[in-house]
């Protein structure tokens, strides 16, 4: 095992150059921090974390929508990580503490099962990138019970990448693409970024060897003056992706502009439920009243962290007021959040 990692690290050293590589996946950040990958490779090869945590990217307004419904007596079902994400009016966890019916599920199928058992209205707060969106699409299409609806918070990765590249704020030279988003969408959606912006890209798996090899593949492309999309995670990801899942998403959703936490409105970055399925859309089924609010927590730098321009250690709240027991910003809540991961694995 050591020999293989040494082999890859020495290959990286041989062709090392000053470069900024961004990944956009909480699981990649987890692998990098848990295995100390940043300390294994030469300092000039900088690997930064982008908006890779769908829980962190849900802005306060969508949390407020759910908290509103929970406080109106609707049963809210969602993934465990969503409960403590702060809205401007508290979190779903706060609503639960006040007596609201908020339940954690492992997948949307469990939320449908709850709706089948109770008579009350059940809403599933559907967060997640393209990996998770097909699971929601399949339930939208398979006629769930009448008391069941969905509040979509599903976001698309490629438009966020284009936004980050276009903004120039990060100055990134290459991208490590998320393996499980790519399992669904395939490798083709990334091609325009290589062609238009000259950025090498590698779709990577989540084992430390996968990440090290992806870094090596990127350096090799740069060294050879190439900018193409390569697939390191070829044992799972097909070039065309999961076509059946893509068809289900096309059937259930349309794509619209939407704000992300830490970002302004990103064009074509959000899956909303199509009008023909409006009976499953919680935004159509309920009058959700959201008051105007300022979406800023004083001192919290979640925004710049999600955009890859700051690290958790630069935040004055990090490890002090903001910690996993008492998260102030969204990036400290989820186990996929950059701050939460940095808290757990420190400066390995």
């Amino acid at each position: 095992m050591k020999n293989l990692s040494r082999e890859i690290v020495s290959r990286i050293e041989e062709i090392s150059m000053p470069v900024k590589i961004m990944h956009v996946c909480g699981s990649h950040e987890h692998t990098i921090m848990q295995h100390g990958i940043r300390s294994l490779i030469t300092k000039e090869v900088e690997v930064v974390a982008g908006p890779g945590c769908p829980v962190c990217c849900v802005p306060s307004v969508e949390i407020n929508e759910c908290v509103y419904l929970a406080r109106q007596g609707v049963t809210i079902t969602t993934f465990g990580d969503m409960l403590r994400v702060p809205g401007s009016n508290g979190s779903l966890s706060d609503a639960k503490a006040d007596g609201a019916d908020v339940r954690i599920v492992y997948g949307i199928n469990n939320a449908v099962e709850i709706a089948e058992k109770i008579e009350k209205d059940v809403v599933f707060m559907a967060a997640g990138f393209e990996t998770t969106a097909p699971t929601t699409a399949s339930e939208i299409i398979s006629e769930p019970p009448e008391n069941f609806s969905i509040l979509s918070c599903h976001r698309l990765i490629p438009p966020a990448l284009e936004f980050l590249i276009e903004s120039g704020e990060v100055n990134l030279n290459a991208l490590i693409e998320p393996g499980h988003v790519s399992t669904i969408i395939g490798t083709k959606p990334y091609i325009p970024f290589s062609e238009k912006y000259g950025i090498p890209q590698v779709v990577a798996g989540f084992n430390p060897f996968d990440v090290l090899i992806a870094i090596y593949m990127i350096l090799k492309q740069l060294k050879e003056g190439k900018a193409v999309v390569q697939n390191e995670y070829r044992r799972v990801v097909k070039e065309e992706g999961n076509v059946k899942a893509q068809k289900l998403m096309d059937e259930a959703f349309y794509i619209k502009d939407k704000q992300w936490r830490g970002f302004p409105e990103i064009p074509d970055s959000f899956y909303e439920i199509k009008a023909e399925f409006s009976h499953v859309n919680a935004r159509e089924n309920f009058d959700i009243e959201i008051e105007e609010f300022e979406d800023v927590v004083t001192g919290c730098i979640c925004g710049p962290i999600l955009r890859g321009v700051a690290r958790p250690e630069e935040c004055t709240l990090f490890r002090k007021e903001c910690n996993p027991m008492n998260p102030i910003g969204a990036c400290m809540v989820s186990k996929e959040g950059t701050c939460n991961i940095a808290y757990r694995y420190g400066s390995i």
Partner: protein
Amino acid sequence: MCIAAPAKILEIDDDTAVVDFGGVRQQVKLDLVEDVEKGKYVLVHSGYAIEVLTDEAAKESLEAWAGLLKVLDEEE
């Protein structure tokens, strides 16, 4: 949150299957995949199989990564 893990299909009943994650069993939905059968491996994300895997892919061996490096060398 896009965490997914390989599991082996033990039983199939219509659009659901019981899978084995090396000891832990779970029911998963098969709506997003095609051509699944008992004994095959699938990649599971939040209660749904999202891809069918070969046996070698599911087992993630060291040889596979060493093999990938070799393939990269040959692609030159």
